[in-house]
Each structure stands twice: as structure tokens, then as C-alpha cells.
């Protein structure tokens, strides 16, 4: 089933969507458009996660990224950006150098990915991913889980304090 034609087609299709939408995120001049294409990218990624037998993660991806993060970013833009939205997402002066470095990163990591011989297993991922993840998270990984929860709380409080209006009398 894994290497069925549909699987392969789904991978390449999703990959194309992801890459194109990511490029649009970077190259569009309007920041709102960028965020929209970001949402597209995230949803495509969720689909890609499905091909990787990670259905829980796919759901989380849609919920957290496509939903929460994108909305939050749009709210941020709304709070900040005024005036002409057509020139809100421009390149800076070191773009050329950055492109060079990125090209090098791509070459190196692509070469390494292709050249490395991976020792894989043919075993399939169990179907009930949610149950397994839940069991593991609340048993073996309970401490990281709690720490992550704490992190979210701290981030929540921190974000509120940082973004809070500064009182004039202070």
C-alpha cells in the first residue's frame, strides 16, 4: 500500500503545494498574502503528515498551525501594520548573500540526505497512533509533557505582560 501509485502521487502533489506555497510566503510583498499562503502550506503539510502515518499530528497541525498560529499572526499584523499593505514584506540588503548561504545549505544537506545510507525497518507504524501517543505521553514522557505544559503557561503569561499596554504613569 505504501508504495502504491496513489501514495507516490500524493507525496509529490503535496510536496509541490508545500514548496510553492512556502516560496509564495517568502516572495509575496503583502504580508497578509504571505500569511494566507502560510496557512495553505500548513494544511498541505498536514496532508503530508498523513502520508507519514501520523494522523494525530496531522490533526494537531491543522488545529495549531493553520488555525491558531496563522490567526494569531494575522492579529499581530492587524495590531501593527498600517497604511499600504502592498509593501509590507520586502527584502533587505543582504538578500544576495543570504541566497548564497541558503543554496550552500541546500546543496550540502541535499547531498548528505542522498548520500547517507539509512538503516530502516520495514515494520509499519501501528494504526492506533493516538492511543499509543497518549499512553506514552502520560507514562514514559510524562515529565517532558508537564514541562511543555508549564512552558505554555509561562509563554502565555509572558506574552500578556510583554504585549500589555504600558501605563503612562509608569
Amino acid at each position, binding site marked *: 500500500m505504501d508504495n502504491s501509485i496513489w501514495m507516490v502521487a500524493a507525496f509529490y502533489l503535496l510536496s509541490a503545494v508545500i*514548496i510553492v506555497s512556502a516560496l509564495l510566503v517568502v516572495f509575496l510583498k503583502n504580508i497578509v498574502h504571505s500569511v494566507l499562503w502560510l496557512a495553505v*502550506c500548513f494544511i498541505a503539510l498536514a496532508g503530508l503528515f498523513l502520508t507519514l502515518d501520523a494522523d*494525530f499530528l496531522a490533526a494537531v497541525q491543522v488545529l495549531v*498551525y493553520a488555525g491558531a498560529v496563522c490567526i494569531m*499572526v494575522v492579529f499581530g499584523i492587524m495590531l501593527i501594520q498600517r497604511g499600504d499593505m502592498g509593501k509590507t514584506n520586502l527584502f*533587505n540588503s543582504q538578500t544576495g548573500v543570504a541566497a548564497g548561504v541558503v543554496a550552500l545549505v541546500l546543496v550540502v544537506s541535499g547531498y548528505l540526505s542522498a548520500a547517507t545510507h539509512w538503516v530502516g525497518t520495514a515494520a509499519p*507504524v501501528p494504526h492506533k497512533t493516538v492511543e499509543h501517543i497518549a499512553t506514552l505521553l502520560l507514562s514514559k514522557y510524562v515529565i517532558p509533557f508537564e514541562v511543555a505544559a508549564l512552558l505554555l503557561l509561562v509563554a502565555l503569561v509572558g506574552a500578556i505582560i*510583554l504585549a500589555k499596554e504600558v501605563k503612562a504613569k509608569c
Partner: protein
Amino acid sequence: MLTLSVGLTQYMVLSAILFGIGLFGVLSKKNAIAVLICIELMLNAVNINLLAFNKFVTPTQFIGQIFAIFVITVAAAEVGVGLAIIIAIYRNKLSVNLDEFDWLKW
């Protein structure tokens, strides 16, 4: 004709491309929020890798998936705090153009 099989290598190349796009955005965009978005792209590239490894290397242990959950958690927190910082900066400077910020220089 391509051998129509999708393995670890394909996922990793995809991940590398997405990472590169995100990196390019981080290094070359003026808008702070755009940089934040591009960081999300990079994090997602990492997630692809984690899930691919989970599927092709250790399918039964769910390490990759659990790690990806944590990444998503941290990313969400990061976006929240990052946006808060950007808003705070904007309130001071009335700008989110990173070219105007050279506060790291003494």
C-alpha cells in the same frame, strides 16, 4: 521513468528545501513578522524530518511523533511570545523593520 517509490530520502530532500526557503526568509526579510513566519516554516521542515524518521527508522516507538508534538508546542509558545515582543517593540519604535534595529551594537 522514475521508480515510483517514496522513501526517507525524498522526505528529507523535501524537508531540506522547506528549511532552505524558511532560512532564506529569515535572513532576508525586513518585516519582523515575516521572519517569525519563516521560522515556522523551518520548524515544520524539522517536523517532516521527525515524522519521516519515525515512520522509516523507528515506527513502533513513536519517538518522532512525540518529539514533533513538543516541537509544535514550543512553536506555538514561541509565536505567542515573539508576537508579543514585536508588538512591544512596535509600541516603542513605531516600526517592525529589522533594518532599523541595531540594538545589538553597543
